[in-house]
């Protein structure tokens, strides 16, 4: 029952917030989200399948469109569990990070935040495609309001672009899911939207062409959500304009919905389609890494810089996913979690800075370490994590993603052939330099150097206002927000083993059809895997 409790707690808190007073709202939200965190922790402790890749619990269903197999099935495997934990971990922190930033319409803000949490949890915990979609899609609504009520000066266009863009992609995802379900019904006579059934059916029964289009359809939603290279246009604007809490959740969790979708649906459902598109998407990933790094370089707005860097980092995830081997996929999942932590934390840091100076312009700000050493400390830690410094969490995912891509060749003796070429990784690895470049330049401008602050009376009197409310350096609440993330970063960086072990069986599950499919595909291209007898390749073709 704990899983339902986990879903209901945020909703209940949202309801309580709506009925409560403006002043109590934030505390209720904090309590509610902390309660979710505790519930999730209990859930995680109870969860028996950390190393087996199975789903749990398996039995509870609440039919909604029973005739059509749409059931509210809640269950997690270890990857979902990790993302659930990421969500419940970041939400209270994002809420606490909004305490001083949000001063208007507080009830609405925190109510939407809790609804957002519930929606994300539903997406991660649902074992039914339609309910995944419900959660996946509904996140738009709270986020729309978060951006368009509490966002920056361009909030309106930002929110609308974010909404329409993501909506446009996901209708195709939905259409693909329905297509698979319909085909499942046609051939078995049973309506179901259960992920496991559809994945099994789709990966084995659909024709090559159908798989291709199913894959394209699924990816069109996930690619926009992630976002992949040419479909990222909504992201810088949305991140930039969103309030701090919104940015944190947007970067920390919502982007992962896209990659989670690829991992959980697109790859397992349509292996043949995926293999056909692998090169394309891997190139997109590489372009994202390099292109966005260069774009980051010339940003002057620090929040935009981090936003663009998200796209660049998601490029690594994409590359890892399309390496189609355990290394890459492990890396991708690790990267999802780690990017959520480090980028979320960076947005929190920037928010704290913004509350003090009311600018995000790196030309106006600089040398903050002399005024805010604690803040700078956290900023440096999270930046280094983003840079991918070994020993911090970012490295684990990044290295594995790239390594996965490097070893994704047709003749690998690892049992998992790929369709890429080492050059992909070698080109992408330049992203490590560029990443270090723009992030360190950012640090050099904003943290190090001589102190530069915006001119005292910046017109709107915000500065004095802020000065009276907030101390120069971080206060206890803010440290308490950032410290857990920093600890998590360090812990994952130094001891990623449990996470790797937990992800590994799921990765194998996702890849179960791939070696044969890839061998067949490569054989078609004239590349034979020496570890597989030729016969095998022919049979699978």
């Amino acid at each position, binding site marked *: 029952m704990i899983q339902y409790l986990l879903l209901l707690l945020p909703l209940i808190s949202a309801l309580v917030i709506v009925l409560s007073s403006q002043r109590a709202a934030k505390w209720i939200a904090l309590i509610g989200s902390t309660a979710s965190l505790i519930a999730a922790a209990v859930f995680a402790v109870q969860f028996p399948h950390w190393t087996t890749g199975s789903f749990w619990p398996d039995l509870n269903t609440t039919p909604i*469109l029973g*005739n059509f197999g749409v059931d509210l099935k809640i269950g997690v495997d270890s990857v979902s569990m990790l993302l659930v934990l990421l969500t419940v971990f970041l939400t209270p922190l994002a809420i606490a990070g909004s305490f001083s930033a949000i001063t208007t319409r507080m009830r609405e803000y925190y109510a939407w935040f809790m609804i957002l949490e519930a929606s994300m949890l539903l997406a991660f915990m649902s074992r039914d495609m339609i309910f995944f979609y419900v959660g996946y899609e509904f996140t*738009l609504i709270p986020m729309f309001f978060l951006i368009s009520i509490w966002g920056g000066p361009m909030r309106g266009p930002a929110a609308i672009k974010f909404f329409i863009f993501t909506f446009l992609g996901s209708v195709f995802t*939905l*259409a693909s899911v329905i297509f698979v379900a319909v085909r499942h019904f046609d051939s078995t006579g049973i309506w179901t939207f259960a992920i496991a059934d559809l994945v099994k059916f789709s990966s084995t029964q659909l024709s090559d062409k159908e798989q291709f289009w199913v894959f394209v359809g699924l990816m069109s939603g996930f690619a926009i959500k992630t976002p992949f290279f040419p479909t990222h246009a909504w992201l810088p604007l949305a991140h930039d304009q969103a309030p701090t809490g919104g940015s944190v959740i947007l970067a920390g969790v919502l982007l992962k919905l896209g990659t989670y979708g690829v991992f959980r649906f697109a790859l397992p459902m349509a292996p043949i389609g995926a293999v056909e598109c692998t090169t394309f998407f891997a190139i997109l990933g590489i372009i994202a890494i390099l292109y966005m790094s260069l774009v980051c370089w010339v940003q002057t707005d620090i929040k935009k810089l981090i936003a663009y860097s998200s796209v660049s980092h998601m490029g690594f995830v994409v590359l890892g996913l399309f390496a189609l081997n355990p290394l890459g996929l492990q890396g991708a999942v690790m990267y999802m979690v780690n990017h959520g932590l480090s980028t979320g934390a960076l947005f929190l840091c920037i928010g704290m800075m913004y509350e003090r100076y009311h600018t995000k312009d790196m030309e106006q700000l600089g040398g903050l370490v002399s005024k805010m050493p604690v803040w700078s400390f956290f900023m440096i830690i999270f930046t280094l994590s983003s840079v991918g410094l070994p020993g911090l969490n970012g490295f684990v995912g990044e290295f594995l993603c790239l390594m996965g891509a490097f070893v994704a060749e047709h003749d690998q003796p690892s049992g998992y052939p790929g369709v890429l070429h080492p050059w992909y990784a070698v080109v992408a690895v330049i992203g490590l330099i560029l990443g270090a470049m723009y992030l360190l330049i950012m640090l050099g401008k904003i943290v190090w150097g001589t102190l530069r602050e915006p001119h005292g009376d910046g017109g709107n009197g915000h500065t004095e206002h802020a000065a009276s409310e907030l101390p120069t350096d971080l206060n206890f609440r803010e440290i308490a927000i950032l410290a857990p993330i920093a600890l998590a970063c360090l812990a994952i960086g130094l001891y990623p083993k449990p996470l790797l072990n937990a992800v590994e069986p799921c990765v194998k599950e996702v890849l179960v059809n791939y070696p044969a499919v890839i061998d067949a595909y490569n054989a078609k291209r004239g590349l034979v895997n020496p570890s597989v007898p030729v016969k095998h390749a022919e049979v699978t073709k």
Partner: protein
Amino acid sequence: MSSFLPMGPKIAVLTPEIIVFGGSVLVSIIGLSRSKTLRKSVPLLAACTLLASLVALALGYSYEAADQAGVLMPHFNKIIKTIILVVGIGLVAISVGHIDRRMEDAVARGATTFDPMRVVRGEFYAFMLLSICGAMLIPGSPDLVWLFLALELTSLPTYIMVAMSRGTRRAQEAAVKYFFLGAMSTAIFLYGFALIYGSTGSLQLSTIREVFASQSDRGGIDTLGITGVILCILGFCYKLAAAPMHFYAPDVYEGAANPVTGFLSFIPKIAGFSALAVLLSTVGWSGHAGFTATGTVISGLPAPILATLWMICALTMTLGNIGALLQKSVKRMLAYSSISHTGYMVLAIIAGPGLGFEALLFYLISYGVTNLAIFGALSGLQKRGEDVERFEELSGIGRRYPGLAAWLAIGSGSLMGMPPLLGFWAKLMLFMAGIQAGHTPLVIIAAINSAVSVWYYLRLIGVPTLSPPGTSSEGVLKGPSSWPRFASAVAAVAVILLPLFASRILGNSAEFAPVTPASNMKPANTTTQIAPTAVNPKQAMHNALQETSREENAQLALHCSPTRL
């Protein structure tokens, strides 16, 4: 073949309509009363009439009687009537206080004195009930005459309602356009009826179907019949507000008062869809050269009709959506949105009985309820006794009336298909039906369209809640009656909660297949009652299809599929 259907079952089947008709007479008489209390009770009476009719329908509707009365699709018939009645109650509720609002406002300003004889409440509700009665009659029509009369009964009162809904020139202009173009469309489908009659030699729909079936056996329905059906479809498009007959809709919806617009965007539409379903059930969705998608034979409508509907579907969705993008008037925007939703529903019609009809009904429920939420909220507002129409008049009203803004937002969310609201499930089923029928391209067009529609629905969400209050929204106040707002709230809650009961609303999809009246097929006493069974009938049908060979399959489709399985 001449068939004299027994009157008994017919009347039994028609009890709900008779109640509504009686109610309309009663309402029009009471509306003339000099007693203010009695006059004020007219909407309540109208609602009670509809409620009584609903009770009669729920308790008294028997599939057996419907069969004997020549109803082609008894289950479909029942559900359509239920939807009409339930939404009808809501439509009555949102129009409470609206018709006389102008005068009351004038009285309050001291511009005039109250004159009971100028009150139009009675007729208005009588017309409303009449139109509802007409719409209820359509899905059960056994023959073309009935269909024609029922369609006219649905339309004629609406022309008057538009004209009397507001005292403005715009309303009268709307009425004129609506009426004249309506007359033209009536002529078109009437001519279509004539051609069908010419092709089949019968007005009985069941006979027509048999003749068409035997024509198909001989190589195809003849040109006369096909042309007739296409003309009918085009004529019905007017009722649906489907392209290319949708041009009147924005003007008429804009000209009519808010509750009437709500009425217009639902009752004629459901009437049109019922008529279309009834008409198309004569040509049938099975046994024609259909689509072969992925190796499975999926039969569909005859190719020309399919082509017509395909075009109508694609055009309607697209024209509706792109039109709505540019609007400054909420009502005009909703008119275009209503057009685009028609397009989606045509997709369900194309998909045919079974899943398609289930999707159609679900969509109609969803659309009706959502419409109530939106038009209820709009009707609950006024600006100096006038309707609230433009977006800027709504801007920032969420600060003052958070409830109304919320109902509007929920309604918009449902219309755009945002999960987990009702509209999403409707669209989900629609897409399922479309894909299952092999119309993936149409589904993709629909998907793109629903993404495009987000833009203008977001405005309806955003303007009341996010925009700052402007000068135009200053004078916007709550309307005199709280019933529209109450109806809107109930509808909005239903939009959220109905999905939880979705599987219980519709029953089994297989029941939507058109039924050949028992009197024609077999002795009445052997007709079995449809009852929900443990086994999924769809699955049973599927299994049956799997086991039979291709030829048997075709035969089965020809002769058996119209019957219930």
